């Protein structure tokens, strides 16, 4: 399992939290219960199984929703 913290551009639209949440959860290998979208700090925190999905997949899922990924950090846990 890996723990990822993804820094996004500032979030502003009302429904973006819900969209990013669903988008990240739809990526294979992501632990659905661990996904946390922080609206004000513009961060997404989650755990994922690096054998199944990759951080690139997760970043892509977010960018296609129209949100820029600034930086992501992955740590093994």
């Amino acid at each position: 399992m890996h723990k990822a913290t993804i820094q996004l551009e500032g979030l502003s639209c009302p429904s973006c939290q819900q969209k990013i949440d669903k988008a990240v959860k739809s990526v294979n290998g992501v632990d659905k219960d661990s996904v946390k979208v922080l609206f004000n700090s513009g961060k997404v925190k989650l755990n994922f199984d690096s054998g199944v999905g990759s951080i690139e997949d997760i970043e892509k899922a977010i960018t296609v929703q129209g949100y820029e990924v600034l930086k992501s950090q992955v740590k093994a846990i």
Partner: protein
Amino acid sequence: MQLYILRRKNSIAFLGGFLIVLAFVSKIGFGNIDIFVWALIAASILGAAPIAIQAYQALKIKVVSIDVLVTVAVVGAFLINNYEEAAIVTFLFLFGAYLEQRTLNQTRSAIKELTEMAPENALKQRENGEFEEVEVDEVDVGDVLLVKTGARVPVDGTVLTGEGHVNEASITGESIPVGKKADSKVFAGTILENGTIQIAADRVGEDTTFGKIIELVEEAQDSKSEAERFIDRFSKYYTPAVLVLAFMVWFFSKNVELAITILVLGCPGALVIGVPVSNVAGIGNGARNGVLLKGSEVIHDFSRVHSVAFDKTGTLTMGNPKVADIEYYSQDTEKALGYLASIERESDHPLAKAVVEYIGDTRLHNVTSTNVVKGGGIIADIDGHRVAVGNVSLMEGENVHLDDKARDDIDRFEKRGNSLVLTSVDGELIILMGIRDQIRSGVKEDLSRLKALGVKNLMVLSGDNQGTVDLIAKELGLTEAHGHMLPEDKSAYIAQLQGKGQIVAFVGDGVNDSPSLALADIGIAMGGGTDVAIETSDVVLMNSDFSRLPHALGLTKATANNMFQNIFIAVGVVVLLLIGVFFSEWVNMSVGMLVHELSILAVIVNGMRLLRYRLKY
């Protein structure tokens, strides 16, 4: 292609705006309807592209987002050849999003300032002894790091060699530089103002005090109250419901205009964004002013507090005894003070510490022999003189003559709640010192501010004897004073107040008070930097600064009010628009979108006021 369009949302918004202006200029100025229509068609298609892409992507993950509503509305407008509305709605939607982003960044600026103080690089010692610049993530516990003048200390650590002055404002809020030498502790995020030091890393990354503060604030600004969770659940079903409603209106009335107007009006905006905006601005103001508020639930509770209970030592008082009164009975005080300091610096008694601190730098003498008298003091030989330091009974044992003036002074000092330290040289009284734990300066004024803010009961709960506690309560104008209380008595008393339906805050220094901090509705820690205090409490006053307390209370009241105003604005606007659409002619799709975006900006700007909040009296 999709990403390319999404990244250029802002440029598209401005281009759309330009085309709309062009359209109206050519129609009104030159009466050219062709250019008018084509410019509007171009503006709508251009503007609708990023919205439609977002709508499509959202639908793919089964979210009926606001983009879906707008896309359907624009397509509808197109079908009935209303290009004017399609163009204006898409422009307003994109331009509104741009403005929201800009203004929201403002409300978050206070917290951003804090997180940007986090150190990023460190100079780490390699095996060959050279220092090399690395990212702060690569530093492990035990590494040796070099910190140069002007640099941020990258981790919590201990100074190995070197000296310097450190500005610890990021941790304590106190900007007067603190001297550091070998064995001093330094903290991540503080700035070395002069000198060069080498430090050993004790705690790194998120484990440092600074890292914990940042994490706490970041979690706090995104924590949700019961009301917000309700709004979230509500908005999840609200958007699809609006879609269904619009469809039904179209189905029964066959009025496309009305149906798409409802779609635009139904966009959830201000309601979803209003409360988080107040929350982040309020917490940001606190972070800037030395008050950590752990989330919106805390803000809600604290703003309605009835009673505030205080621990005494370290909270109302300084917590370290100090020399408060002093009398001399001889001209040659210099030498006697030197003797006194020479004896007391060997002792670790709390009173001795206060004495040494009071005297400060002085000429020290060689102490040849010392004899500790239990329950009395110390008798020592210095330079052939017999020096006694202790209480009145020690002086009597030494046959020191206490004249009437000395006896009066002793009485007077004791009445003020002092512990006494007398010094005699060769059987003659030279110095009388009164030492006590002093009330923090300004506490009285701060307490009256709390009262003015509507706190009904102010009480002190202390382990100290009832006499001392009564004295303090009288001096500070507290409503209740309870002495002889063990930590469990304090929490039991808090539970009793809560049983009467009161909302109770407890202010303590966190170590022995953690049960009360945890039990009280609002636990307020005087954070001198102890982790227990930071973790068990709901509010942390940085640098143990008591004067932040009235600001904290005023701020939570202002923030709670602000949230209420924002909900009022949001709901009020929707109600007005709905009335307008059914009972008047002036509400169409463009007006709806305009009002919708304006209401979002209104709640953001309203929230921003909190950043400038200051207590007025």
